[in-house]
């Protein structure tokens, strides 16, 4: 693998972090959603990151080739019940199930995604500079 392969690695991380930020945005946007196609209130979503690997020349040494989002899983926390008897989605006792989403938690997650994105973007810059420098040999 050459230096261009490094761009793929950092690119995979940029993509994964952006998807993570999208999931956080969806969680925040659906904080008050009580109806979903699956029925019931919206469930908070988590992303699951997994390493991408490729076997090297020897089978025993595996080469990391970046990261990918393997799955987006719903949170298992029970919904929050609020007493709103007038609400169309209220149950027989007058309680409405709202998604268990903590905005502070989501913001922290979003901040983590932003930082990681920036870090990988600077890795791309570093790699680009190295490629450009190797062109200097020809001059």
């Amino acid at each position: 693998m050459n230096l261009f392969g490094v761009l793929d690695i950092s690119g995979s991380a940029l993509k994964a972090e952006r998807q993570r930020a999208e999931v956080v945005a969806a969680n925040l946007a659906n904080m008050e959603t009580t109806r979903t196609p699956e029925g019931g209130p919206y469930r908070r979503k988590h992303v699951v990151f997994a390493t991408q690997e490729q076997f090297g020349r020897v089978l025993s040494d595996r080469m990391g080739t970046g990261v990918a989002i393997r799955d987006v899983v719903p949170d298992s926390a029970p919904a929050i019940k609020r007493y709103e008897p007038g609400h169309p989605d209220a149950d027989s006792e007058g309680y409405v199930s709202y998604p268990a989403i903590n905005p502070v938690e989501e913001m922290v997650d979003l901040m983590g995604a932003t930082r990681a994105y920036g870090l990988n973007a600077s890795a791309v810059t570093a790699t680009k500079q190295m490629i450009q420098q190797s062109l200097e040999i020809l001059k």
Partner: protein
Amino acid sequence: MTSLDTNTSGLLGHYLDLAAFRHRLIANNVANIDTPGFKAQDIDFGAELKHALTAGGSPEPKVNNVDGLIERPDGNNVSLDRESMLMAQTQLQFRVGVQLLRTEYHRLLLAINEGRQG
């Protein structure tokens, strides 16, 4: 080895290969900064360079997990500071290698041009 390859250019080639390889590992560490259970990887630059120079050809460098890093609760031990520092260092090493290689080729060119500049 062709007639234009010198000892120095061969050495610098190995040096640049290793620097690029290490850069790749660092990029992968940074990419996996949020992957649960991921362990930071690195090579022993000095030992690998010595090995490449004595053994001649350059086999794939040996990749090790980095010792002595603090592991987070999710099993990941990538240190942001360590990786940023190493990335800067590797970038400079690469630059040094490129500059030295250029100088070497200029020296050759000087010999070809019988000492005239340019």
